[in-house]
């Protein structure tokens, strides 16, 4: 306060500025100082102690880690035709938590496009706590555009991949399918999951307010796309096999059927068809019966298709020759009798195969000890897993020779008492087509023919092929399996089925396994018809026509040169009596 002081002299002098009480100043300054210190401490605290938290918050506003999805590998046939391929589809989702009220007509339009009822759509929007709910998964991009054009806030689309199977029901059990999450669930999609799935990558980016990517913050981890799986299957042969198996099952009113086509020189599986089958693109009603890959996972007793093996064993060890005569009268082993339905007192070894004689094959087999016979069968792949690469494939059953009784050794020579899968049976016939070697079977295309394991000499294999060619000629049990222009060798089989441990007379499996051209075999085809009920149940009759169509068509597709061009007339099978084989 500046006032004028009045001194004793009477003159006014300006009073010196009033001095503020120093206590108050100190107090105020001290208070400000303290506040300042507090500010500094807070700043230090934020910078040092809370740095991570605040940095994270900052990143959360702009920094994003994007997953780069890997494309699932294509499954292709041996010629590069796609059998399983992923294609992008759209998924519509909504975020109810941030949505305002939606008008009834918008809900109606949305429901109409997505083929849902308006009540269902409302129900999905109702739960306001959820931030993410699927409205419709895997719809076409065009439909997704229409949905987005409605402009309902809170509804968005997302790209997903969906697997398509161009081969449809032809090869469905072998390829299998993926689940909704894109992982293989069955078949080769499951067995080769790691190879097909690849590995997803990631990017760390900075996004601006509008969502555009502005900068990469770290090195991009590129995704590793899944590799292409090239199968050994030929789509054209597969179509043929499936069509014929389906036809055979329907014509014979059978329960099921299967066929395998193998390359006789490399062991590659060129076709593998099962019926009943399903469409993997539309798995709405899927029964377990349709999903079974019967040719690989179902076991059955092979019946007469086994007979070439004891004969080969006898030939290999010098105990028989193709023209050797044999006593084929009914005989007994202990309490059991081994008989042929159409007995002949004398047959050549060739006729044993042509007419399919139980007596003949068992007499040849009984010349060996159980151990010798077991070793031969084991060498031919019976009782061993074929390791083709399919999940759940079976190795059949070949009991330890120590437990064999003579009658069992006899029945095993004509295919009872041992179990095989159709793939195993087809594979065993590579012994006859690959110069005596048993080849490994493969679902994937191979570049060089595999070495194989020697079972019989090449000469024995040639003799066996010649003997088996008589089966498809007049007098044989497989005349329906003949193919115009080619020599076809093979063996028919009709096996009674076991029900509850007993053989029943009204359930059979009709089979035919063969190869062509018999002089230089290119293909092995094995056809099996389960429980034919349309009249005849013999393998030559029910499986023979399917075999002929598959073999003939396949050889023509592959451009194989006919090895018997003089054979221009088919045996009129409809006018000849059926040569019934022994069951």
């Amino acid at each position, binding site marked *: 306060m500046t006032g004028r002081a009045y001194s004793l002299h009477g003159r006014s002098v300006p009073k010196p500025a009033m001095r503020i009480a120093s206590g108050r100043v100190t107090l105020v300054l001290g208070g400000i100082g303290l506040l300042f210190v507090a500010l500094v401490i807070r700043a230090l605290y934020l910078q040092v102690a809370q740095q991570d938290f605040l940095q994270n918050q900052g990143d959360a506003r702009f920094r994003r880690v994007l997953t780069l999805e890997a*494309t699932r590998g*294509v499954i292709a046939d041996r010629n590069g*035709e*796609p059998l399983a*391929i*992923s*294609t*992008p589809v759209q998924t519509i989702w909504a975020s109810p938590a941030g949505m305002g009220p939606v008008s009834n007509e918008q809900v109606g339009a949305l429901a109409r496009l997505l083929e849902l009822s308006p009540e269902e759509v409302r129900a999905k929007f109702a739960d306001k706590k959820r931030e993410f709910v699927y409205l419709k998964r895997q719809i076409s991009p065009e439909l997704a555009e229409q949905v987005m054009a409605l402009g309902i806030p809170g509804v968005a689309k997302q790209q997903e991949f969906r697997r*398509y199977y*161009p*081969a*449809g029901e032809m090869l469905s059990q072998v390829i299998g399918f993926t689940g909704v999450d894109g992982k293989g669930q069955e078949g080769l999609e499951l067995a080769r999951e790691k190879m097909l799935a690849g590995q997803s990558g990631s990017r760390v980016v900075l996004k601006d307010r509008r969502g555009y*990517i*502005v*900068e990469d913050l770290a090195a991009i981890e590129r995704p590793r796309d899944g590799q292409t799986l090239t199968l050994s299957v030929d*789509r*054209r042969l597969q*179509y043929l096999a499936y*069509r014929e198996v389906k036809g055979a099952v329907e014509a014979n009113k059978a329960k099921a059927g299967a066929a395998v086509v193998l390359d006789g020189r490399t062991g590659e599986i060129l076709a593998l068809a099962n019926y009943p089958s399903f469409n993997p693109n539309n798995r709405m009603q899927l029964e377990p019966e349709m999903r079974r890959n019967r040719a690989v996972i179902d076991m059955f007793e092979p019946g007469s298709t086994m007979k070439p093996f004891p004969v080969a064993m006898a030939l290999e060890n010098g105990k028989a020759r193709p023209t050797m005569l044999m006593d084929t009268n009914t005989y007994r082993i202990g309490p059991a009798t081994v008989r042929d339905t159409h007995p002949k007192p004398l047959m050549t070894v060739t006729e044993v195969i042509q007419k399919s004689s139980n007596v003949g094959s068992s007499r040849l087999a009984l010349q060996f000890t159980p151990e010798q016979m077991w070793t031969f069968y084991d060498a031919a792949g019976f009782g061993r897993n074929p390791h083709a690469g399919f999940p759940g494939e079976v190795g059949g059953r070949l009991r330890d020779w120590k437990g064999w009784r003579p009658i069992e050794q006899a029945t095993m020579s004509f295919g009872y008492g041992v179990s095989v899968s159709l793939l195993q049976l087809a594979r065993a016939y590579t012994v006859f087509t690959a110069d005596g070697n048993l080849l490994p079977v493969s679902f994937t295309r191979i570049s060089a023919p595999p070495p194989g394991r020697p079972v019989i000499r090449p000469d024995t294999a040639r003799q066996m092929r010649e003997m088996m060619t008589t089966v498809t000629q007049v007098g044989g049990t497989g005349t329906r399996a003949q193919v*115009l*222009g080619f020599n076809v060798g093979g063996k028919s089989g009709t096996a009674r089925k076991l029900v509850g441990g007993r053989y029943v007379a009204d359930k059979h499996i009709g089979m035919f396994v063969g190869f062509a051209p018999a*002089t*230089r075999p290119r293909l092995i085809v094995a056809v099996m018809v389960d429980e034919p009920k349309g009249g005849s149940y013999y393998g030559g009759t029910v499986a023979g026509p399917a075999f002929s169509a598959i073999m003939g068509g396949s050889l023509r597709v592959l451009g194989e*040169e*006919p*090895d018997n*061009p*003089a*054979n*221009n007339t*088919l045996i009129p099978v409809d006018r000849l009596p059926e040569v019934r084989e022994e069951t």
Partner: protein
Amino acid sequence: MLNAILLVVLVLCAMSVVTSQHMARKLYIALEKEQKRARAYEIEHGQLLLEQSTWGAQAVIEKVAADRLGMHAPVPREIQVHGVAGARP
């Protein structure tokens, strides 16, 4: 005098830094665009493969050949097989 020159140099450097960063951002955006196109082409390739195999499916062709064109595979009576002269037996 020296100060003036250095100032000019400094300004030039600063402007070149700004320009480089701007060019880098533009190129980056162009790269993103091209990569997106490449991905779209790959996807389209897959879709076309799928379409081709669907139209070329044996079942479809057989149906078209039988229904629309009235064709059938020759029956054995219509086939005559000839060997190549001098071929192996």
